[in-house]
């Protein structure tokens, strides 16, 4: 792995400090009562006790996964490990394909060979911690995992422990940028061990139009593809920035924006789409038809608007 550029660390720190102050964009992933919102691969791996999500299983395959998949996000949670607790957080994983995505490790420091590449906060086996966190067991820690396209940042109690540009990590090349978030069932080789989680929440960066539009300029096709999907999901609110990009962008941006505009209109035109959503998309296109400075963009918008009845 190449060292992370200094500027990247600074910008990550800036984003981190911003994000911690904004609470309203976060969605709870754990309601403190039951496992709704999660899929269990095998029953019995996790239980809810006193508002905490506890795993005390010892077998494998007892992991749980979010029902929804995520590409770019900030995940926040608190964790606590017993003396020999061994768990982790799966990122961008397809549960039906073991080994996809990566794991941010959570591990009590119980064996001497658990080095920086396999300790709490590491991207297990791929990226070592650069700043090893406190590993005292029986104590709650706040963890934040930020997946900003190819840049992944892990921090514990507001201190960055690990950072990676996964494009430069050999063992991570070709990993998908989308997948489910999972919690690994405790698999310590000793009875009576556990890991606990609470206050699990997520900010989906792909729900933010300003974030999504920047993905259209990314040189990685998969990240552009994810941004197009996100734009299609966001619908009307993306029309104006995309119309602007189709007019003023570079050839790649123009082409991607053109396709995304089509996809939004096509989705809005679906007989199953609500009348309200159709109206919103159509009206956003009409606004851009009036404001765009390009004849090519205007003609294209007029054409796609025609799809929506």
């Amino acid at each position: 792995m190449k060292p992370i550029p200094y500027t990247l660390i600074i910008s990550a720190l800036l984003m981190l400090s911003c994000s911690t102050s904004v609470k309203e964009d976060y969605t709870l992933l754990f309601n403190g009562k039951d496992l709704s919102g999660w899929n269990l691969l095998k029953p019995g791996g996790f239980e809810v006790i006193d508002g905490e999500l506890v795993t005390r299983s010892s077998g494998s395959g007892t992991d749980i996964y979010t029902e929804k998949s995520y590409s770019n996000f900030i995940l926040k949670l608190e964790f606590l490990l017993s003396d020999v607790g061994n768990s982790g957080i799966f990122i961008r994983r397809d549960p039906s394909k073991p080994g996809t995505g990566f794991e941010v490790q959570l591990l009590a420091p119980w064996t001497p060979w658990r080095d920086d590449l396999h300790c709490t906060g590491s991207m297990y086996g791929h990226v070592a911690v650069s700043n090893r966190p406190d590993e005292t067991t029986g104590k709650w820690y706040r963890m934040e995992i930020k997946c900003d396209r190819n840049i992944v940042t892990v921090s514990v109690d507001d201190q960055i422990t690990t950072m990676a540009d996964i494009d430069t990590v050999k063992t991570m090349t070709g990993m998908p940028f989308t997948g489910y978030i999972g919690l690994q069932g405790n698999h310590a080789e000793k009875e009576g061990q556990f890991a606990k989680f609470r206050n699990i929440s997520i900010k989906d960066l792909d729900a933010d139009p300003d974030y999504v539009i920047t993905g259209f300029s990314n040189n990685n096709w998969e990240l552009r593809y994810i941004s197009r999907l996100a734009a299609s999901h966001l619908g009307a609110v993306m029309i104006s920035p995309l119309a602007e990009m189709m007019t003023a962008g570079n050839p790649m941006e123009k082409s991607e924006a053109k396709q995304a505009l089509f996809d939004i209109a096509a989705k809005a035109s679906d007989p199953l789409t609500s009348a309200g959503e159709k109206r919103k998309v159509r009206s956003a296109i009409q606004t851009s038809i009036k404001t765009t400075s390009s004849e090519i963009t205007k003609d294209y918008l007029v054409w796609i608007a025609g799809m929506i009845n």
Partner: protein
Amino acid sequence: MKKVTQITRRRFITGSAMGLIGLPLLSSTFRNVAPSDRVRVAVIGLGNQGRSHMNWFNALPEVEIAALCDVDKIRLEAAANQLRAVNPEARPDLYSDFRKILERKDIDAVTCATPDHWHALIAILAFQAGKDVYGEKPLTYSLAEGRAMLNHLQKNNRIFQLGTQIHAGDNFHRVAEIIQSGKLGKIHTVRLWKTGGSPGLGFPPNETPPETLDWEMWLGPAPYAEYTPVRCHGTYRHFFDYSGGVFADFWCHIADIMFMSIHPKGLYSIESRGERPYDGISDTPRWIDVDFKFRDLDVYWTTIPPEVPDSDKMHIGAHFEGTEGSLTCDYNNRLIKIGNEIVNDIPEIPVTIPRSPGHQQNFIDSVKSRQQPESNLVYVREMTIPMHLAVISFRLKRKLEWDSVNETVKGDYAANYLLSRTYRKPWTLPL
């Protein structure tokens, strides 16, 4: 050509044999058809396929290439030089605007090998000008254009042949005979495939079009776009603005054998899956799979060949599954499987379908006889409809329900909207 001549089968067989061997040196010997009996042909669009038109028709003794047309001066000159080299007697008039050709009363027929978005308009204007048309595939850019073409063909009593020259080969005729013999029982499933898809073409910058190219005219009824070379010659088919990619390009070649053999009716459901390229400005499928449901027949199109005999050797193919056996074929080969036995032919099935004298000769014969040729407009229009619907399903990312009697998509406004496209001014599609 002044008079309509009925020609005998014997004569057109001789004619086609001449066509095969009558290339350059012998041409003058065989060009003894009276000038009044010659069909005067103009070729519009002079890329690879257009130059093939020129050469194919030039080789027919009854044909005189009277004019050539292209919006690219370099291509126009190159084609004219090529023709003069092959046929020193040729005196083609050269045009950059096809409408000048349509004004000429002495031209009987035009062949059209322009990009797809021009096919329908050129054909319709030619019909209106009293000319017969040999047009390249795919038939049209949009489904509605096919209807308009048929309307004007009938109104003006014209001849049309689609340039699906594979149709004329012996293999397709023999496959149709075998399927129609009933030896394979009732055909319930057909699998069609073509490997490969559109490349991304990268993200090249826009450029000023070369002075030798009339870019405005090249675009014609298509939406205005800034010029970049990959949008134009050779790769335009990878843009939905002008065509529908490899799928639209090859559908008619291989769906042809299905329509020739069993002529499926009552298409009612179309569902496409696929992806566009990720690495460039092209937007047509890099792969596409389509499930079609006809009355009593399931048809599957795939980009990867299905697991059927010898499909790994066929980049394009068709597989018929019947209650008694199956048949797999491509343009030139066929495998018949009944039980565990695989054969190439069933000799006891008689030859019942007349063979083509050659696809271009078949057209010229039709021009003279006024009987429609094998790949006539009624036939090819019906054969092209599933392709258009699959493209729309791919673009909208949803299943379509088709009313094949009224030719409308049920309950999907956008899908019906995409059956046609408004032409860019000043062009209009005569309905």
